[in-house]
């Protein structure tokens, strides 16, 4: 079914279940310790796997001698890249994924896997790792994005040539991709401006920082079947990629997703899963591989560090005449990052006549980057919103009014190309202007920041089964991972459609052998697309229920309506029939045609773009450079909040991650190219006492492409915080902040430079 078949009469506006704050189905399991996460699965006879990782940022692997490790009693398998032959048939992107899981000829970053062992226990596996002898030839490395793009930088891959230039370069380089967006004539626009401001910004690399380390339990049988229990944002995608890399048939690899202890994009990529499968295949026993926190930081999922130049010109009346940005991002050690998304999102909030954004992607000797909640957008928003703030002040206009004046609206040609339909940037800015937070007095050494942000959102492939049991209770099986409470929302949608109570609907996440393909929970698609599929599946089930009622009444289906969880016979001569409840129809299912179910397989395009505006008050200790967030407000359009608590939760969680990024989180690399803070002690994510309550305001501007008007909400909340806090700290200190995170040493340095 396509959502384009959705006519206006299918759109629902009045709800009984939707919008309530029901209890989540996985709640009791999660508060009692029963819920099973990745590392909580065990299989009979399972071995413990550990991974040997490169201590070097860039090195040729000349030789790996595993013979001593193999001879150690209790060691059942040792693998290197030789045990992972290339099945990718020329698909370089897939080969990069494999090479990231296990180094082939070169170690490309500190933490890159070079070998792995499976042994009867952890102590034996640890001993075995020490017995593996790797001969490295250390190569020059580069970890900084601007350095990597310079001529003369060590070239990391000799097969990578800059893509997106009109002429193919003659030499390989670390500059893997070029792209530009925009329209109009920016040079002319700058000439028309009364004020032009240019600035350069940097942001450091951050990690998604999910609390649950990656863990996989894999079992490969000699008959070619395999099963895998794993924490992932997308078990179908994990299955497809692992099967392709291991040379298995996808249907024979059954993947069960565990409860997931946070992902935020970091569990959209496979990291150690192929290693666990290869070890299991070699040892012929189940293998459990759980990463340590150190491994999570060194070898999985950080986002990009960036270097961004922004130039904006405006007239004194507050009209932006031109805007330009060059955004340089790195993707870690492989191509495939998204500076482009920074370029696309950078000016997306504004209605601009002349705009250009240029994206350059670099390759560096750091772990392969992964998506992190609205990938690439927060850094671009930081740079652009900071300059927007500065330009507004330069022409003597309130920055929020300046934004409102220049905000994109329906009919605006977006900076990334297409013309906008109905969008919510104006309403979120207006809501910010009217919010009591904006009028609250500020204390000493405090500054207030306001910034807005944009994200695309998407839908993708989704399927859902709604099965009605003989007693009239309902199970809904979804295949999109529940990361933040979507099982509750999906069950609510089913209850709403069937007209029964939420308590009579149980939702589960089905394994890859029990349901058709589902895309990952990313792109803010989980609730958007699964609820859509669940609604359509329920409507299909209702059709079956009406048919069954018609049979029971011996009338035609056209004479049966579904209302309030029951079939009603309609028409003049059926007035005396009492309704048949879902329960009554289910009880007769065996005699009316068999089990009652509804299914939907959809591609949920049309998620709709999303905007948010944040307000923050920050107090800065001017003698130490330390910033404290005193008040924080998130305003965002949700389309329709199915379960308001979980929408608020997305707003609050995204904001908190953004606050951490803005103030303290960063990867610190030494001159030797080694990561120096691979742990929660020195990679400083916000703790409870660092944050205030995070106020939220949910706007509901219905998405015309969803039957309930839902928009994705998960990612946009991380887009504005860097800019919001950057502006707040600027206002508190009187010094424009241009480097994220604004750690105390950086802020103090900026203050001391100002004094001089």
């Amino acid at each position, binding site marked *: 079914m396509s959502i384009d078949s959705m006519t206006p009469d299918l759109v629902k506006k009045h709800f009984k279940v939707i919008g309530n704050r029901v209890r989540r189905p996985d709640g009791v399991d999660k508060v009692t310790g029963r819920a099973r996460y990745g590392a909580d699965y065990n299989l009979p006879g399972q071995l413990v796997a550990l991974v040997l990782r490169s201590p070097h940022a860039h090195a040729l692997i000349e030789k790996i001698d595993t013979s001593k490790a193999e001879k150690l009693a209790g060691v059942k398998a040792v693998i290197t890249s030789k045990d992972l032959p290339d099945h990718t048939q020329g698909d370089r992107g897939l080969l990069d994924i494999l090479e990231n899981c296990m180094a082939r000829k070169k170690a490309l970053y500190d933490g890159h896997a070079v070998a792995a062992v499976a042994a009867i226990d952890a102590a034996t596996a640890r001993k075995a790792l020490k017995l593996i002898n790797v001969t490295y030839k250390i190569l020059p490395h580069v970890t900084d994005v601007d350095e990597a793009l310079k001529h003369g930088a060590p070239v990391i891959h000799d097969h990578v040539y800059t893509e997106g230039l009109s002429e193919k370069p003659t030499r390989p380089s670390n500059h893997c991709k070029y792209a530009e967006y925009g329209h109009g004539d920016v040079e002319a626009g700058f000439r028309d401006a009364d004020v032009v401001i240019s600035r350069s910004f940097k942001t450091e690399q951050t990690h998604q920082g999910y609390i649950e380390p990656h863990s996989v339990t894999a079992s490969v049988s000699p008959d070619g079947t395999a099963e895998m229990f794993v924490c992932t944002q997308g078990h179908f995608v994990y299955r497809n990629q692992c099967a392709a890399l291991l040379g298995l048939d996808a249907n024979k690899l059954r993947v069960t997703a565990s409860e997931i202890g946070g992902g935020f994009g970091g569990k959209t990529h496979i990291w150690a899963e192929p290693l666990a499968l290869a070890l299991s295949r070699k040892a012929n026993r189940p293998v459990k591989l759980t990463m340590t926190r150190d491994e999570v930081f060194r070898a999985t999922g950080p986002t990009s560090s960036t270097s961004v130049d922004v130039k904006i010109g405006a007239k004194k009346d507050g009209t932006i005449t031109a805007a330009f940005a060059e955004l340089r991002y790195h993707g870690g050690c492989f191509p495939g990052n998204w500076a482009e998304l920074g370029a696309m999102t950078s000016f997306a909030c504004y209605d601009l006549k002349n705009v250009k954004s240029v994206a350059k992607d670099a390759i560096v000797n750091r772990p392969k980057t992964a998506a992190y909640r609205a990938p690439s957008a927060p850094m671009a928003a930081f740079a652009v919103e900071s300059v927007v703030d500065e330009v507004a002040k330069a022409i003597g206009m309130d920055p929020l009014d300046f934004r409102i004046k220049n905000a994109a609206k329906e009919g605006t040609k977006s900076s990334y190309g297409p013309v906008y339909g109905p969008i919510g940037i104006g309403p979120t800015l207006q809501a910010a202007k009217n919010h009591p937070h904006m009028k609250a007095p500020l204390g000493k050494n405090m500054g207030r920041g306001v910034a807005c942000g944009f994200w695309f959102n998407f839908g993708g492939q989704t399927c859902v089964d709604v099965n009605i049991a003989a007693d009239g209770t309902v199970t809904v099986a979804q295949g999109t991972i529940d990361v933040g409470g979507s099982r509750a929302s999906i069950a609510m949608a089913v209850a709403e459609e069937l007209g029964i109570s939420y308590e009579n609907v149980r939702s589960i996440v089905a394994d890859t052998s029990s349901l058709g393909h589902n895309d990952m929970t990313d792109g803010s698609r989980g609730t958007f697309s699964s609820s859509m599929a669940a609604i359509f599946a329920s409507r299909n089930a209702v059709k079956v229920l009406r048919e069954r009622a018609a049979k029971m009444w011996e009338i035609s289906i056209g004479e049966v309506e579904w209302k309030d969880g029951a079939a009603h016979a309609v028409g003049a001569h059926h007035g005396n029939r009492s309704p048949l409840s879902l329960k009554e129809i289910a009880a007769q299912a065996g005699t009316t045609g068999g089990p009652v179910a509804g299914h939907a397989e959809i591609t949920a395009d049309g998620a709709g773009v999303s905007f948010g505006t944040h307000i923050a008050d920050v107090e800065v200790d001017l003698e130490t450079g*330390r910033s404290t967030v005193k008040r924080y407000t998130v305003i965002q359009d949700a389309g329709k909040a199915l379960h308001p608590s979980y929408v608020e939760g997305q707003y609050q969680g995204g904001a908190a991650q953004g606050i951490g990024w803005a103030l303290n989180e960063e990867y610190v690399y030494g001159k030797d190219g080694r990561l120096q803070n691979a742990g929660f*002690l*020195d990679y400083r994510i916000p*703790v409870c006492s660092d944050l205030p309550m995070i106020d939220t305001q949910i706007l509901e501007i219905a998405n015309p492409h969803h039957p309930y008007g839902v928009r994705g909400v998960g990612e946009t909340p991380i887009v504005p915080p860097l800019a919001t806090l950057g502006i707040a700290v600027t206002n508190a200190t009187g010094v424009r902040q241009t480097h994220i995170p604004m750690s*105390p*040493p950086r802020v*103090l*340095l900026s203050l001391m430079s100002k004094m001089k």
Partner: protein
Amino acid sequence: MRYMQPSTAKEAATLLNKEKGKAFVLAGGTDLLVKMKAGMVEPDLVVDIKAIKGIKEIKKTASGFTIGAAVPCAALSENKDLVKTWPGVVEAAGLIGSKQVQGRCTMAGNLCNASPAADSVPALMAAGAKVVVTGPKASRKLAVEDVPAGVGRTHLKKGEFITAIELPKKAARSGDAYLRFIPRTEMDIAVVSCGVNLTLDTKGVITHARVALGAVAVTALMVKEAAIAIIGTKLDDAAKAKLAAACSAACKPIDDKRGTVAFRTEVAGVLARRAAETAYARAGGK
């Protein structure tokens, strides 16, 4: 690895002394277990001292307080006498790690781990605390500042371990305070820290002062010049400026993942001034 839980200090010292491999003392274990997990240390013997009689007790004595080496830091703030007498020391110990870590970690362990950033150490130094060291043959006492020898090294000999920390009797009109700088509000290691202990005369003039800095050199530093800068003053602005300057001048820090040389040097002075203000107020100065 072997695990032993002796019931006397003598027995513990003998075990540590006799061990041919690598022997470690386990009190709270909040540093030792982290190092074991990271593979930084691989003990052959771990001697758990928590079963030694009296080692988990806080005793008020005629000459001050004796705090057993295995007293978890969380227990310090539960001792009202101690909090009233040495608030700076208790606050410093209370800053080590989370509530979870507080339930286990000890001041003696904090000292013996010999990190230059240990929170309790500058406060203990400012307070003039001593440690009781038990060895296989005899016991001895050392000033706290004489325990660390460098990063991760102490002046304790093989077989020796700390059984107690002794805090002196509090002088009349005296007060102590400890401040550290961390980027977050909790869970961080001090980037720079300062302990101050002051005694005033009846007019509010400082007669004695001890100022110690943490995380600005290979070990915590006693800064005599800082003390001299404020002795004889009522902690007026000029004295505070001199104090800050003396502290900044004493710093020999490094650039690392937690802070820069410039930052540590500057903030050492700021913290010293603020800690001195608190100590001065606690001593009854106005």
